[in-house]
């Protein structure tokens, strides 16, 4: 065999294998098995016996994943074959950890239980994903309504700042509540804004990239073409002020910068944008107490004045204690004390997983995210249509950036924010939104083969 045929064979293999639905089915089988083992380990470690409850936590998500798989077979037969198993695996690990925290909570008589709800929400989110695959066979139509998506996205962002329905938790105004139901509209907004940015930029990319004068080898755009980036910057600062959350603000602005760069190929936008964001964050840390407190807590979480302050670094310190207890191999599921970490089932679930699965588990989980993002960017790379490329890039990046900001936050690499960990954290809005992203990526990947432009 010659060298040429070998180098040609590898991309072919990569391309061919993951698109097969049978390959996906085999992976789903394995992932489902892993989850059964994880749940069994939790029960054996905490309860010292297996109980029938296991079937519920195991079967419902598995049925949901099989349903999505079935719809893909019917409707998007050439969609990427790794994305669904990866999302299912990460989601299932989250459920196992939340269930484990529930058992700890129940054993000390607590009533703040999340696992059962999370299982049902996972099923709903998976059905939602299947519905997107079923009813949005042609995502390119989304391109027609960028401004509707944009306005809807902004409205969702503003909702939590409204009186009555808006809610502040942990200092961040990211929730709306209607009776017992609460929702984080920003999670859905990120999809709408990705659609908006992609649709808007695909129509404006030529004027944004071609015109302008050259200074020191870098093309400087005309002043009027700086308009969009300024508008988005002001909007991000607005989000920061209204919602008191640096993470959300960075997420949307980062999404926009990446898409304008991808559309135009101009590093200038990234450079200018990063400087604007840093300036904004620094000014905000001076002007707003809550931002500067977060910065203090981040810079020295173990200083007594930060540790003991209300809204200080207590949570972060507890998360770091958890990570540290995990060491390299972890305590094993059910073997650590993740229940000591505040909000271990949601904001700090990575610390809980880090304690029980160790550095090895953290690496594995981050690698799963990275692989998921890689598949998304591959879809972008191989798609013939520019809007689809931008959308796939935006959706993949937004997941990646969110994981980075959240994981960086709980590890003390970045200041803590109110963002949720995709697929892992307890919470419906996050699950719905991230499964919707999975569905859109699947639809886009399917269309790149079926609808060559």
């Amino acid at each position, binding site marked *: 065999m010659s060298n040429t045929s070998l180098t040609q064979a590898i991309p072919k293999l990569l391309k061919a294998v993951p698109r097969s639905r049978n390959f996906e089915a085999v992976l789903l089988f394995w992932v489902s098995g892993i989850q059964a083992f994880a749940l069994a380990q939790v029960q054996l470690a905490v309860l010292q016996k297996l109980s029938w409850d296991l079937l519920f936590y195991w079967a419902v998500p598995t049925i949901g994943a099989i349903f999505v798989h079935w719809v893909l077979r019917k409707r998007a037969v050439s969609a990427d074959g790794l994305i669904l198993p990866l999302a299912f695996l990460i989601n299932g690990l989250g459920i196992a950890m939340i269930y484990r925290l529930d058992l700890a909570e129940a054993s000390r008589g607590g009533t703040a239980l999340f696992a059962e709800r999370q299982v049902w929400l996972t099923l709903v989110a998976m059905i939602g994903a299947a519905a997107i695959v079923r009813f949005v066979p042609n995502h390119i139509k989304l391109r027609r309504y960028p401004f509707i998506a944009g306005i809807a996205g902004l409205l969702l962002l503003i909702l939590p700042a409204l009186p009555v329905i808006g809610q502040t938790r942990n200092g961040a105004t990211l929730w709306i509540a209607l009776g017992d139901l609460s929702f984080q509209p920003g999670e859905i907004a990120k999809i709408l804004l990705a659609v908006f940015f992609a649709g808007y930029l695909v129509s404006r990319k030529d004027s944004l990239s071609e015109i302008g004068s050259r200074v020191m080898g870098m093309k400087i755009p005309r002043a009027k073409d700086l308009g969009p980036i300024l508008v988005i910057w002001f909007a991000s600062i607005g989000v920061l002020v209204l919602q008191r959350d640096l993470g959300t603000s960075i997420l949307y602005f980062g999404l926009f910068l*990446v898409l304008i760069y*991808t559309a135009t190929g101009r590093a200038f936008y990234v450079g200018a944008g990063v400087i604007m964001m840093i300036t904004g964050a620094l000014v905000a840390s001076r002007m707003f107490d809550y931002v500067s407190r977060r910065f203090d807590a981040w810079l020295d979480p173990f200083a007594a004045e930060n540790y003991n302050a209300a809204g200080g670094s207590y949570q972060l310190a507890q998360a770091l*204690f958890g990570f540290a*207890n995990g060491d390299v191999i972890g305590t094993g599921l059910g073997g650590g004390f993740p229940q000591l970490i505040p909000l271990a089932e949601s904001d700090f679930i990575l610390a809980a997983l*880090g304690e029980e699965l160790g550095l090895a588990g953290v690496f594995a989980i981050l690698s799963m995210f990275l692989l998921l993002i890689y598949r998304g*960017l591959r879809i972008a790379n191989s798609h013939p249509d520019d809007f689809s490329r931008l959308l796939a890039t935006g959706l993949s990046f937004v997941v990646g*950036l969110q994981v980075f900001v959240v994981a960086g936050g709980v590890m003390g690499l970045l200041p803590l924010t109110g963002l949720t960990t995709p697929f892992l954290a307890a919470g419906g809005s996050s699950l719905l939104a991230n499964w919707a992203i999975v569905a859109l990526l699947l639809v886009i990947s399917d269309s790149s083969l079926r609808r060559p432009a």
Partner: protein
Amino acid sequence: MNRQVRRVGLVLVLMFLSLFVMASSIQVLRSDALYQDSRNVRASYETYKTQRGPILVGGVPVVESIPYNDAYRFLRNYESVIYSPIMGYFSLFNGSSGLERSMNSYLSGQSSAQFFEQINALLDGKPVIGAAVELTIDPAIQRAAWDALGNRKGAVVAIEPSTGRILAMVSKPTFDANKLAGHLYEPANEAFLASTEDENQPLINRAIEGDLYHPGSVFKLVVAAAALESGRYTVASSFPNPKSYLLPGTATEIQNSGDKTCGPGDTVTLQVALIRSCNIPFAELAVALGQDRIRAQAALMGFGADLSIPMKVTPSIYPEKMDEAQTALTGFGQFDVRVTPLQMAMISAAIANQGVMMQPQIVRMVVASNLNVLLDPQPKVLSAPMSRLTAGYLTRMMVDAVEIGVAKRAGIPGFAVAGKTGTAQNGDLDPYTLWFTGFAPAADPKVAVAVVVEDGGGIGQNGTGNQIAAPIARAVMEAVLNR
């Protein structure tokens, strides 16, 4: 557009790489330190699962976890209160201290040296058993030091000069760790609160931590060493010998103890000044040497440096940026010079060990439950703060101080004992802090000691180091010589 997408991918890979690095740093590099943070209650909770290792003195466990019929399954039992300052406490509700804290990773079976045991435990589902920690403490010497200090407040440290091994470490008043280690929240927490609110601070190991002490005249050893090491002075160097000395730049006069000159004559030698422990010659000497030279000598002896034995030792202090009057006061260990008893014992041990200071250590060995030796600390040189010659001169003068000078009560018939007393002032009306440090036998030192007694030993400003501290030191040294 593909080039841009690839670059976006690269940026994401870099972001995740930074997360990998951060996770490794927390979970590997910093994990032990984070685990030992007193605000991390995981170590206490581990008792649910782990039989915590014992701490042994002279081959006999003095702290151990005994099977107990409740949810925690084991109760921490402290054999004798005389070891409390060393062992510290291990509370389910209020963190830990002492060796219980600094050796926690071994005692709880979580140290990286026990990695394979942990893997085994993970596989067969049985809990790891903590490792046993054997100390360098000699029970007979510890008992002698405890008894000799009696009901007084203070501390005693005894070190083997040639190895740095700590033979005894006593601090009074102390606490009953059993009360803090109880499994019932209310009594355990109340005992803890009572101890923290007690003005005598029984939870503090006075030998190595707390507010530290003014050394008074025992600090003259440091100043004398600085003088001899400078090459500008010998033991025969002489100083003006007035009855009263005006501190430079002030209107304050100081006197020698007893308001007399330092022996007859217009001048006095360094040798006589040290043997008689006169303040004025040392004030003159300190000014002539300058604070920088004294500070450098003190630093060589360990002042200002972090030290773990493995309990954390509070660094002793020689003040910065003083004027001449203040420098003069430091010549006899007053002003803001502050030391731990361990620091003074280390200085005596270095003099005894011909100028070589050994790293003080209290752990002789750590043995895992499968009898693997996890830690076997060897004697280690910490520094060489003075030449052999200087050490020899200081030894000679210290022997004379005990035989013909002001430290007579440390003398042991049949042995040459080297020693230096101190009677430090704390304020015009406050009781004195009484000191003795020294070693024996002078020719072949087996033990170096430091004794500090607070509150003037209960007799205000009437006691002296010779009267109160020296006999305590003698009892400890005798225990070593008789063993």
